[in-house]
């Protein structure tokens, strides 16, 4: 087997003296859809923040495509091809939907200060190409009709979709989606699921944090279960459903030997 796209080993994250993640270790292989699940406060979002450079882990290693990415800034990690979405709706509110997409395509452009002043043909071509890519992305998430609307005037479900589009825009190798279906109604959730499948079919590897179990079970190749800052199970959906420790974690009754609750 080739090296996994993402390998997280023995990662420990402390937030203000509180151990949010005590010993995190899992892998995401090329082309997989992996879900990271766990009860509230299990440390899922913290794990995302650690992987994408927003929090520096106290211990452990994180390798992306074989490269140690601990200590790199979020923008460097994004440039390597690892991009995340956010749990709370995160868009550039005062800008139009098209501008949002163009901003998210930042890494696909190269123009700098020089190009801002000298009207080289290359600059124009780049702008045209970025616009095409932005429109294609909006088309992909079904928002091309709203391209000229202000992003904060979109309906909630549309904003969520835009959030995913922004993360997926620059065609990352690995896409981390933090609760993409949060607050969506069933039909919107179905749309969201279809979107994730399409992204996977385009060759994007996906790591997902999600609370909607029906969705997780149907979409994931593999599920990693996090409880109170540590991994308690890792396997295909069918095995996870049967796992007694997972059932215990979800139905209450903390496993013995775990001292502190996570934030």
């Amino acid at each position, binding site marked *: 087997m080739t090296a996994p796209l993402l390998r997280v080993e023995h990662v420990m994250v402390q937030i203000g003296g509180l151990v949010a993640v005590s010993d995190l270790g899992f892998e995401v292989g090329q082309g997989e859809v992996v879900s990271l699940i766990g009860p509230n406060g299990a440390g899922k979002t913290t794990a995302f923040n650690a992987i994408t450079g927003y929090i520096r882990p106290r211990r452990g290693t994180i390798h992306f495509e074989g490269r140690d990415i601990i200590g790199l800034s979020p*923008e460097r990690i994004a440039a390597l091809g690892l991009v995340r979405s*956010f749990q709370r709706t995160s868009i550039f509110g005062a800008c*139009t939907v098209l501008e949002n997409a163009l901003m998210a395509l930042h890494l696909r452009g190269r123009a700098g200060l020089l190009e801002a002043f000298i009207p080289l043909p290359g600059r124009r071509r780049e702008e045209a190409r970025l616009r095409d890519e932005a429109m294609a992305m909006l088309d992909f998430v079904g928002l091309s009709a709203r391209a000229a609307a202000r992003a904060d005037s979109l309906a909630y479900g549309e904003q969520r979709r835009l959030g995913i589009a922004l993360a997926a*825009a620059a065609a990352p190798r690995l896409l981390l989606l933090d609760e993409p279906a949060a607050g969506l109604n069933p039909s919107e959730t179905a749309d969201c699921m279809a979107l994730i499948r399409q992204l996977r079919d385009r060759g994007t590897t996906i790591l997902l944090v999600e609370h909607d179990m029906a969705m997780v079970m149907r979409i994931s190749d593999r599920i990693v279960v996090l409880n109170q800052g540590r991994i308690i199970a890792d396997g295909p959906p069918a095995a996870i459903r049967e796992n007694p420790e997972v059932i215990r974690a979800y139905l209450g009754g903390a496993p013995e030997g775990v001292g502190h609750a996570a934030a």
Partner: protein
Amino acid sequence: MSGLVGWAFVLAMALLPVVAPDPYMLAVLTSAGIFIIGAISLNLLLGYTGQLSLGHAAFFGLGAYASALASLGFDIGIGFGMRLRLEPQPVYVGFLSAILVAGVFGWLLGRLAFRIRGAYFVIITICFAQVLRMLALNWVELTQGPMALVGIPPFSLWWPGQGVVDLTSKAQTYWLVLGVGVLAFLVVRQIVHSRIGRALVALRENETLARSVGIRATHYLVIATVVSAGIAGAAGSLFAHYVRIVDPDVFLFIYTVTMVIMVITGGKGTLWGPVVGGLIFGLLPDMLRGSARPEAQWIAYGAAMILLVMFLPRGIVPAVAAWLPARRPATQALPTPVREGVG
């Protein structure tokens, strides 16, 4: 505002000294113009990156001193028995060194301050201007301290067929300021309408999200600060050679506040905002001078400001743009570069 309206405005301003050669009015417009250039530079930071620099007068003052010192020359001890000498240079060298010096300090301040953003950036910029003022007051050998640098030469310009000419008339200085103003406007416009401008607005709107899609925060904020500082330095140089005396008061907080007010009332984050705000607050005090006592004048000035901020919180330009039916009111944040012209 479409490009045509913009250029018509520039043309009208350029023809003013011919149509109405009133030296008093030209003097008022010239000094207003210098501050409008300062406001245009501040707008790149305040309007497009959302970072409030309350020490913007520092760059303005640095430009004024750099330009004045370069054209006067200096000879100072720098310790260890060494001396640093500079022969008086032509004024255009002073102008360029003003941009350079302010830009370098902008880079330094940007590198330092953007590690800690928001309120701390505001505080650092205030301190920066205050430290420079102290330096200008106390480094008497270089700056003459409170005695001020005097006898600064007027602007000179190389002109085809005539060689280097001094710009001594009011109209000539006015045109020079107008020219630099148009250039400053175009520089900011080009940046705002480029990939860099998009990155700046993204950082302003949502920094966490911007970084997550790979926009290097420090890199782009430093670019904006350097360009902004350089333009402010150019304005400072114009100021030095226009009033021909520079004292430590150029670093005063009130100069920064004047520029901030111009940007906010005109509409921060719009290209025309600082121009409109600058014309109003650059001309208002002088227009009131004839008809009102100074006390009443300042009260009117303050009241106008409060009313504007209360009723047009986003500024005049966005409010006017919202009334014009042909324009989309919401997109003042980032006009799409496709068909926008000047503005």
